[in-house]
């Protein structure tokens, strides 16, 4: 049974000890070793050492494949000397054919394991924790599998495209693939960039450590004060849709959307802050997503690293494929420029979104979820001009705050409907919830006190509202300037009162403890 989660006391103690030992290490290599040992220790208590063998095996695989590809390309470098760029192209293509086999081998194995586990989950294969107990109908679910599989595929593809140089030091690569802040639920990092950072681990900086710790506590606040108050209530409500009034279901959907944002972005604050304190900069995964004015913009602000991964390794390779380009060229000639443009965007976008759905889960509900977002984003991109013309026809002033707010509310509704598709766990989930909302409105439940009888009493409800107001304020400020730098400029007393208030609010209002079982982060399950 895993006991280490990012918001557990165990993790706080583990990280404190690790940070102190790390900071007193005099040289870079010792710092890196401390991190590697920390990674193993973390994984042992978060996912189990048995599952770690899968992670180590996949690291050996990408290490071997990347060096193999580098060796093949070395032949090209020798032959290409003295040739013009244009002459190099066919030569490079012939070498690429050879390296492609290695790439395919690596990707095939990595994806094979991921698909086996995902399909196994869908078919309810028996779950085991040990490799020797594995059989066809038994699966092991290694912690963070879908995250490190994606990073690994990206690494191999970058080496194949010669965008990244493979790492020759196995232990450095292993430090990256097992890096404890990213292993459970991302951000889906690029190993080549992470490797570079481990090679140049910086010296102690008070500012960086302080900023990292601030960000970690901010994450604890979002997760334990807000998300963990709401999630158990909405989960219970979705499990029993017909027992609640329509208006209560609306609140449950809104609450669930807020909770998942607080849960996931809170986790990202914890892990990005932890890495920052260690001197490693991770990619951001959120940029105030609910301030987005369209579905496409939302996905450039929500789970950014997943979107970037799909753009770089699925969307672009399909869109740039010479055969596909030829197809779109033909479509353009035959049916006009407009059709060609829509076709060239729609096909790769739909593939990306179906795969994004399947990445989140293998049920019909997730397939529908992917399709839903795909259609929304294709409509937005293909009919951009027409959509922009609507407010003009309605004589709406698009430059006002009111209009921007309307767009943000629309984004929230788009996301909420998306959540409803997967909330209950069956294909017709969204119809069940919508049905209940419209059939059993019962508005009076808002005022007769029954709202507070579903697991969140009046006091806790107010804690959530105040917490949300604080997060909203910080989000607004963060969109304008670096909040932590601004705090640095304040007088010492003010700063420490603020730090203390943050820590104490988590200690006093946070939901934690042994009896509480909803602690695990929602995105850890993917």
């Amino acid at each position: 049974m895993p006991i280490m989660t990012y918001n557990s006391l165990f993790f706080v103690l583990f990280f404190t000890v690790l940070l102190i030992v790390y900071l007193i290490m005099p040289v870079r290599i010792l710092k890196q070793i401390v991190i590697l040992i920390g990674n193993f220790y973390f994984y042992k208590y978060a996912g189990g050492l048995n599952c770690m063998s899968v992670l180590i095996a996949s690291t050996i695989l990408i290490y071997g494949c990347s060096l193999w590809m580098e060796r093949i390309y070395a032949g090209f470098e020798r032959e290409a000397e003295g040739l013009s760029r244009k002459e190099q192209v066919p030569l490079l293509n012939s070498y690429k054919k050879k390296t492609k086999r290695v790439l395919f081998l690596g990707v095939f194995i990595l994806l094979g394991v991921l698909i086996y586990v995902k399909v196994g989950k869908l078919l309810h294969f028996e779950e085991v924790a040990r490799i020797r107990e594995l059989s066809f109908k038994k699966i092991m679910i290694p912690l963070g599998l879908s995250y490190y599989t994606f990073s690994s595929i990206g690494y191999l593809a970058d080496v194949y495209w010669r965008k990244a140089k493979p790492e020759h030091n196995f232990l450095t690569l292993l430090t990256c693939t097992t890096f404890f802040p990213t292993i459970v639920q991302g951000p889906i990092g690029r190993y080549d960039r992470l490797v570079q950072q481990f090679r140049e681990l910086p010296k102690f900086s008070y500012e960086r450590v302080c900023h990292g710790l601030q960000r970690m506590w901010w994450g604890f606040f979002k997760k334990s004060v807000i998300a963990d108050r709401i999630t158990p209530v909405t989960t219970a409500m979705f499990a029993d849709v017909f027992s609640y009034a329509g208006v209560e279901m609306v609140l449950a959907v809104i609450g669930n959307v807020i909770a998942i944002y607080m849960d996931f972005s809170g986790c990202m604050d914890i892990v990005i802050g932890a890495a920052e304190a260690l001197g490693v900069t991770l990619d951001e995964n959120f940029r105030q997503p609910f301030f987005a004015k369209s579905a496409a913009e939302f996905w450039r602000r929500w789970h950014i690293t997943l979107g970037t991964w799909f753009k770089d390794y699925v969307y672009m390779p399909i869109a740039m494929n010479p055969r596909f380009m030829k197809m779109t060229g033909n479509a353009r000639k035959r049916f006009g420029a407009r059709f060609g443009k829509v076709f060239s965007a729609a096909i790769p976008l739909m593939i990306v979104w179906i795969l994004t759905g399947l990445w989140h889960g293998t049920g019909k509900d997730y397939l529908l979820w992917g399709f839903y977002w795909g259609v929304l984003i294709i409509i937005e991109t293909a009919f951009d001009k027409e959509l922009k013309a609507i407010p003009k026809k309605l004589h709406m002033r698009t430059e006002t705050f009111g209009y921007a707010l309307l767009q943000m509310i629309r984004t929230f509704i788009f996301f909420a409907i998306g959540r409803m598709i997967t909330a209950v766990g069956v294909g017709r989930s969204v119809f069940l919830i919508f049905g209940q909302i419209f059939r059993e409105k019962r508005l009076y439940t808002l005022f007769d006190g029954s709202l507070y009888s579903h697991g969140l009493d009046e006091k806790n409800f107010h804690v959530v509202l105040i917490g949300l107001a604080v997060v909203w304020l910080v989000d607004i400020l963060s969109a304008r300037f670096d909040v932590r730098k601004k705090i640095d400029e304040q007088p010492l007393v003010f700063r420490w009162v603020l730090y203390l208030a943050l820590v104490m609010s988590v200690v006093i209002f946070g939901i934690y403890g042994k009896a509480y079982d909803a602690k695990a982060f929602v995105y850890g399950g993917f």
Partner: protein
Amino acid sequence: MKEKILEILSETYPEIDFESSDELVDDGTLDSLTVVGIISALSSEFDVELPYEEIIPENFNSVDAMAEVFEKYM
């Protein structure tokens, strides 16, 4: 070369001012959809097949950068 590229791009994407910045991709003026369209238009115009590794933001941040990368393969 630069003039030719500018001419093609202005025709295909009249709503975008390609000379407004040197960070067209980084500052969000060009999204991935538009970059794909640009590559498709320029590749067929100059009869060049751009290797995938050249498709990085730096090569599409300005018309100068685009001219440079396409010239390499002509």
